[in-house]
Each structure stands twice: as structure tokens, then as C-alpha cells.
């Protein structure tokens, strides 16, 4: 059985004028159907306004369908009795950590979630310590969150979700505020959670290089799924990605420019390391 079963989901927002009259209706998600399997790592790519965040908010019942159904591990999110169990199973990390932190001390913030689901006190402290360590924030546990930087707060927010031990974690552009190493180590943490603890991961992102490590990439545009498959397959179609407003990683662009310039390189290279190796091979083939 699939963990998420989304069937003919549509979501519309009315744009209203000052008097509350409807000016126009925006369709954020448009008759979308897909399944996401337990234990997989799925990346959802798309530009601003493609509908990917709206879809994500349906996955833990922050939004419930106007039309269509969303089933989470056998539970229909349209049934109000299922809201709490769904949100316990599916943790969500947002882009801006300032909107997710509520306590005045870091460790209390991380403990808030498990406390709310009646985890025994000893166990809460164990989970808090463990979660903070996994995001590298142990030395800040007594700090006030408002004295932390954006990236540090994001780590605290992630620790707060880890402490809930969710079966699935949805991350909505979690690296938007992080520095390059913070970005890499966050993605490493996510990959590890998926591989080692079999947490189902849905990563929403603009950045193709973050999506490369997923099992499956879904590309959204105007509220519909436009591409869906393994990273290698999806990312091979450079033209279509560009049409959908996505930019290839710099290494891929360089590879394409060098091929155009007459250097003999294979198509579809995404990674800088791989490109470097291929350029060196081409250099040797050219008789140097």
C-alpha cells in the first residue's frame, strides 16, 4: 500500500477585491493524481507558483482537498478525526524557521512536539538531546532562539520534527536560508534519515542539484505533474526542464557549452566531479 495516495486533487484560491468580490480564481493544483510509496525519497521540483507547496500542505492535512482525495497511510484527510494522527505521522519543515519556533529556549522548542503527543518526560529529554545532536546544535540547547541565525533556527526546527519521530518528513524549501555547507549537511541528514531509518521523505525544492539524490523526481508546473521518474531520466530532458522554468546545475550548463564548442563529452552530465573526469578523458583522447 502506498503511503500517500492522491487522487484527482484540485485546489483553487479566490482573488478578491476590497469589497470581497471575487476578481479571479487561481488554480494552484489542478486534477493531480499520484502515489508516493513508503520509505522512498521523492523530490518535487518547480518554479515559484507551480503548486508544489500547495501540494505539500495537502500531504499533512494543513490543507484538505476542495476536490479529490488525499489518503495518508490509509487515512483520508477529509475526515476530521484523522487530522491529528496524520500530522503525527507526517512532519513538516517550512522554508522560514521564524514561523516555526515558539519556545523561548532551544531545548524547550524541540521538546514541544513530543510533549504535545504525551511522550513521557524522560523520553522527551532523550529525544531532544538526540535530535539536537543530529542537526549539530547541541551546544546551543540553552540559547534563546531569537539569538540564533536563520540557518541555526532552521536546524532547531528540523530537530523539533525529528523529536516527533515521524514516519514521513516533508521539507518545503528547507535550504533557502542556509549557507553552502549548511545546505549540503542538511541534505545529507535527510538522505541518511531516509536510508537508515526508512523515513519517507518529500523534498520540495527549486534546486536540481538537491533533487539529484532522490529516488524519484516530480516536476510540477501550473498545478500539474509535467515530468515524473528517476533523476537520470527526468534530468536528461534539458529542453523540457528549461521550458518549465528550471535551471540546470552549473556543471550541466558548462558541459552543454563545451559540447557545443566541439569538445567530445557525453550528454546529461549533472555533477561537477563527473564533468571534470569527462573533460580530463577528452583531453587525453585529444592526444595530450
Amino acid at each position, binding site marked *: 500500500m502506498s503511503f500517500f495516495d492522491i487522487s484527482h486533487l484540485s485546489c483553487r484560491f479566490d482573488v478578491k477585491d476590497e469589497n470581497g468580490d471575487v476578481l479571479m480564481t487561481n488554480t494552484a493544483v489542478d486534477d493531480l493524481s499520484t502515489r508516493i510509496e513508503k520509505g522512498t525519497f521523492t523530490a518535487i521540483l518547480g518554479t*515559484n507558483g507551480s503548486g508544489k507547496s500547495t501540494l505539500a500542505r495537502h500531504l499533512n492535512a494543513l490543507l484538505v482537498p476542495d476536490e479529490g482525495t488525499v489518503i495518508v497511510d490509509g487515512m483520508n484527510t477529509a475526515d476530521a478525526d484523522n487530522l491529528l494522527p496524520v500530522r503525527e505521522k507526517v512532519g513538516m519543515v517550512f522554508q522560514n524557521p521564524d514561523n516555526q519556533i515558539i519556545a523561548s529556549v532551544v531545548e524547550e522548542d524541540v521538546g514541544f512536539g513530543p510533549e504535545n503527543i504525551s511522550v513521557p518526560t524522560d523520553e522527551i529529554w532523550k529525544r531532544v538531546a538526540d535530535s539536537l545532536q543530529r542537526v549539530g546544535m547541541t551546544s546551543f540547547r540553552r540559547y534563546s532562539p531569537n539569538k540564533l541565525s536563520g*540557518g541555526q533556527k532552521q536546524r532547531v526546527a528540523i530537530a523539533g520534527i525529528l523529536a516527533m519521530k515521524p514516519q514521513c518528513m516533508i521539507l518545503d524549501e528547507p535550504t533557502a536560508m*542556509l549557507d553552502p555547507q*549548511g545546505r549540503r549537511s542538511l541534505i545529507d541528514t535527510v538522505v541518511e534519515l531516509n536510508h537508515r531509518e526508512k523515513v519517507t521523505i518529500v523534498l520540495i525544492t527549486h*534546486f536540481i542539484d538537491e533533487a539529484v539524490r532522490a529516488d524519484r523526481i516530480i516536476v510540477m508546473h501550473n498545478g500539474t505533474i509535467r515530468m515524473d521518474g528517476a533523476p537520470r531520466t527526468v534530468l536528461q530532458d534539458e529542453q523540457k526542464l528549461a521550458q518549465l522554468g528550471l535551471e540546470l546545475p552549473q*556543471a550541466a550548463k*558548462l558541459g552543454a557549452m563545451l559540447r557545443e564548442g*566541439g*569538445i567530445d563529452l557525453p550528454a546529461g552530465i549533472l555533477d561537477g566531479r563527473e564533468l571534470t573526469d569527462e573533460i580530463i578523458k577528452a583531453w587525453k583522447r585529444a592526444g*595530450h
Partner: protein
Amino acid sequence: MSVLRFEDVSFEYAGSNGELPVKALDHVMFSVEKGEFIGLIGHTGSGKSTMIQHMNGLLRPTSGRVLLMDKDLADGSWTRQQICAHIGLVFQYPEYQLFAPTVLEDVMFGPGNLGMSEEEARRHAEQALERVGIQEDKYERSPFDLSGGEKRRVALAGVLAMEPEILVLDEPGAGLDPAARRSLMELFMQLSHEGITVLCSTHSMENIAEAASRILVVDKGRIVMDDTPAAVFSRIGELEALGLAAPEMTYIMRDLRAAGIPVDLTALTVEEAAQAVLKAFGKQAGQDGERR
């Protein structure tokens, strides 16, 4: 004359619950000339945002001075209003500060506060909205009905409408898709060409390598490097030790050179890198990737 100068600036946040104060800035010294495009890079928590909040007097140094056109921001030489007229500060996620019922009114708020007549404020607002690419049919819409990228542009227009001489940007591209991010960066480069001084903090080494004329690297509240992008990004090992990275092209050039391919190590952008590799292979590069 420098337009903005930090003179031995230190800043401490008071400690809570009897803890020691946190030193966020530690003897920071630099000066900015008119028309420069400065990139501020540093890992999260390095002190970039604290530094930025000193640039328009939102925070005042625990010791040292911040000078705008050679006059101290903190000693009463400048009124709040004068500071805002000179320095436009765009915070992280500026769209959270949108508040007015319509886009146009929101952008007019800043110039209105500087004492402009309604007509003048409207003219400034319309110019700024045009600059950031918001079409006229959106002027009477609620800013909250716009997409994330559009909201960001409206918030930026609110600052541009005050016609600041210095534009200070704290992670302006965070959360935008790569195309939107690049078009914002292009706007800042254009403003810089028109003589506006730009200081921009970012985590995107690729974007800033292309845009900035000078880069300040911040670590533990201190400035540890202050140089051209090419010089700063050639120090890959040191940057990594600080939790940073160089643009992806820099790594590729370094590894190619190590393998014996004679490429130009200072190539930072994709265009420059392509040119460097094609040249090494003895192929004609299509266009010249000249850097300004």
C-alpha cells in the same frame, strides 16, 4: 570620501539567564566607496545580518563607530528620516512586511514617510514598480494575492521608491527560484551601474561571484577576507574551513589544472569557465566572456 565606513565596530548581544554576552561583531573595519557592489558572505551565524543592521542605525555599536558620508550614525548628526533616505535596507523575506490594502499604496508608504506629496510619492512608486517588473494591472491588487516572487519585488520596490544612494540587501534571493533569483541579481547589477552603492549578503556563491566587484568574508563577527571575487574564491581551502565554498566553476577549474590542463584558474562564471576550457583545448570560444 567613503559613503559608508565601519570604524572598529564591536557589538554584543546581552546574555539571557545570567549567561555571558554573545559577541556578534568583533572590531569590524571596512569602508565602502560610491558605486561599489559588495558581496557579504559568511556561514549562518557569522554576523552578516548583525552587520547589516548596523548600516542604517537599527543596532548601535557597543564600541566603535559607523559613519555614513563621514558622519556618525549614532551621535545625532543624522535624523532617522535622513538615514532612511540615504540607505535602503531590504531585510530577509521583506514580503512579510507588506501591509497596505493595495500594491501601489504599499510602495508609496516609504516615500510618503520621507515627506513627499502624494503625487510625488505615487510617481516614485510607479517608477520603482516598473523597475522591478510589476505591471500596472497589479497596482490596485492586494499585495497578499501575489505570488511569492512578485511579493518580494513589491517589497523591494517599496525601498527603491525612496531612491536610496546605498542599497543594503540581506539574502535577497532566499526562497526564489533560480530564474527569479538571477533576474533580481541582474537588477542589482544594473542599479550598481547607475551609481547606486550595493551591499548584498548571500549564500549563493555563484550569483555573487558574477555580480560583485568586491567580497567581504565574515566569520565570528570579524572580516577575514576583503578582496576581489577572483582573489577571494581562489582561497578555497580557507573558505571551506570557514563553512563556505567557492562557486562550482572554481572547483572544476582547480581540478582540471591539477590534471595538467592549462585552464585559467580565475574563471568564476559558466561563460568564463567554458571559454577557459575551450581555449585550453585550442577551440574557438563563441563569445568573449569578458568580466567587467
